[in-house]
């Protein structure tokens, strides 16, 4: 992996901020786009733009081919059985809303149980709260050990015969823990529950095989893996998708519409109402090709190097506290942390003034922050285009944050 060549593919990384190339460590929020992705979007709009699945002129056909062709790339990427199991959405959030509304609200009833973890992103939490409120199901949580960030295994007993849904993230966007979801998936299946796996923070960084995982639903966003915004994926096992109500209603998702009744289109179109985001789909296919070219083993190894360097450096700064495990071997490429007596917003402001972009706040995981007893945190999240030099620069600036806020030590 040649980092110089890779960085050359990302025009935005050439941005000068505070007198040096911008350091972008907010990849957990969104990632930057390489030239092949930007070019694919340009090419599509320059040569193929039409409305797919509608009309019979050359551009309508070209757009259909671009859209449907990208789906085959996605199918192969996650190893779904067929493209009937791959639905395009706007993002992970919309994918989760689709599952909650079209599956959760129609398949759950009073007394059923939904089990999620306290570390979930609001998209995988508020959605289930709503399902519980509407159906009378009970929402229960798997908690984590506050030191290690690992799930409390005794809480797995909450998954019982009444449990209909088990939903959790493969990688938490705050804890960033390497985690094998397989045992939890198997446990849920033993009790007959449907498993919703949130891959927003895993898919960009590791190879995922939905058949091997055997999850029932799998969701992720394009923009967190070098594609453009507004394109997301919902994978679902075909039998489950067949048994679900449509999500949005309108164009393309229909079979036959009469004045009073409508029959719906086959999968996956049944869940894709309205003119889709074709350039987003094209950008996702281009991003997948780009990531595959680099190789996920290379990506994981590089991120491991960066996170190890970051954690080792942060441990040497006495007033920096790492959230969850501080063992680099257990971490994916993200670290959430706090600085004693300095609010995360101020940490971020000072780092931004030095040309470093990190995330600050509760990262759409308020229940986790409440559980951990922290108001807000900072998060540095890495991607394959970040460098060891950038991490060293970040550590240097981080070590000066307290002094900048008027503390003498």
């Amino acid at each position, binding site marked *: 992996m040649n980092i110089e060549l890779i960085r050359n593919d990302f025009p935005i990384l050439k941005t000068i901020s505070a007198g040096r190339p911008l350091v972008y460590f907010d990849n957990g929020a969104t990632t930057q786009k390489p030239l092949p992705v930007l070019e694919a979007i340009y090419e599509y709009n320059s040569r193929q733009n039409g409305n797919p699945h509608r009309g019979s002129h050359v551009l309508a056909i070209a757009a259909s081919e671009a859209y449907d062709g990208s789906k085959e790339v996605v199918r192969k990427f996650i190893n779904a059985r067929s493209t009937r199991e791959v639905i395009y959405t706007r993002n992970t959030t919309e994918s989760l809303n689709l599952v909650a509304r079209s599956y959760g609200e129609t398949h759950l009833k009073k007394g059923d149980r939904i089990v999620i973890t306290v570390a979930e992103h609001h998209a995988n939490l508020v959605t289930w709260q709503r399902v519980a409120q509407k159906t009378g199901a009970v929402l229960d949580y798997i908690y984590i050990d506050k030191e290690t960030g690992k799930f409390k295994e005794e809480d797995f007993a909450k998954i019982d015969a009444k449990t209909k849904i088990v939903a959790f993230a493969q990688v938490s966007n705050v804890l960033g823990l390497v985690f094998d979801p397989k045992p939890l998936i198997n446990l849920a299946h033993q009790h007959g529950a449907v498993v919703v796996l949130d891959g927003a923070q895993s898919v960009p960084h590791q190879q995922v095989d939905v058949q091997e995982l055997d999850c029932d639903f799998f969701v992720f966003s394009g923009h967190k893996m070098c594609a453009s915004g507004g394109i997301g994926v919902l994978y679902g096992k075909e039998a489950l998708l067949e048994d679900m109500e449509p999500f949005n209603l309108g164009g393309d998702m229909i079979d036959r519409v009469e004045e009073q009744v409508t029959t719906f289109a086959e999968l996956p179109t049944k869940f894709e109402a309205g003119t889709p985001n074709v350039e987003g789909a094209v950008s996702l296919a281009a991003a997948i090709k780009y990531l595959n070219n680099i190789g996920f083993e290379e990506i994981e190894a590089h991120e491991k190097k960066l996170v190890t360097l970051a954690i080792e450096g942060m441990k040497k700064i006495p007033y920096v506290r790492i959230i969850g495990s501080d063992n680099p071997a257990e971490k994916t490429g993200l670290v959430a942390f706090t600085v004693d007596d300095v*609010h995360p917003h101020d940490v971020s402001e*000072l780092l931004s003034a030095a040309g470093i972009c990190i995330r600050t706040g509760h990262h759409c995981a*308020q229940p986790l922050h409440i559980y951990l007893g922290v108001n*807000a945190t900072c998060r540095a999240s890495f991607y394959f285009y970040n460098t060891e030099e950038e991490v060293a620069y970040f550590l240097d600036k981080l070590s000066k944050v307290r002094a900048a*806020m008027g503390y003498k030590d």
Partner: protein
Amino acid sequence: MDVNQLYTDIILEYNNDKTNKREISCPTISEHGHNANCGDDIKLQVVLKDGVIADIAYTGNGCAISQASTAMLIELLGGKTVEEAMRLTRLFLDMILGKVNDEGQLEELEAAAYLKNIAKMPVRVKCAVLAWHTLAIALEKELAKKK
């Protein structure tokens, strides 16, 4: 705006001044305020005696801007009538929104006038106005009771 112009000595001084970061045992008013995006969360407590703010304090968490702004609010509004406090709170909010620029007019805000430049930093506006916005809600309820 340069970050050094943001974290000025006066802001850092007020941020570190915890004199009025305390719980009042029997407040007349207790109002929560929070910023959903950054997790700032404060509780303002006020003791009213004959329409005058006899005591005012806060508890909670926030960034340096929000904490300094809260300390400035308390210093300015202690001893003022509810009406006067409401007028000054509105003046502060107008300053942050960039609606009032006149230095002479802003002198009334005392130390809080130093936050004027926040108007140029859209992402920090909500930090600066948290306490003032929270107090405005509480005082409006109080004024409505009077009517």
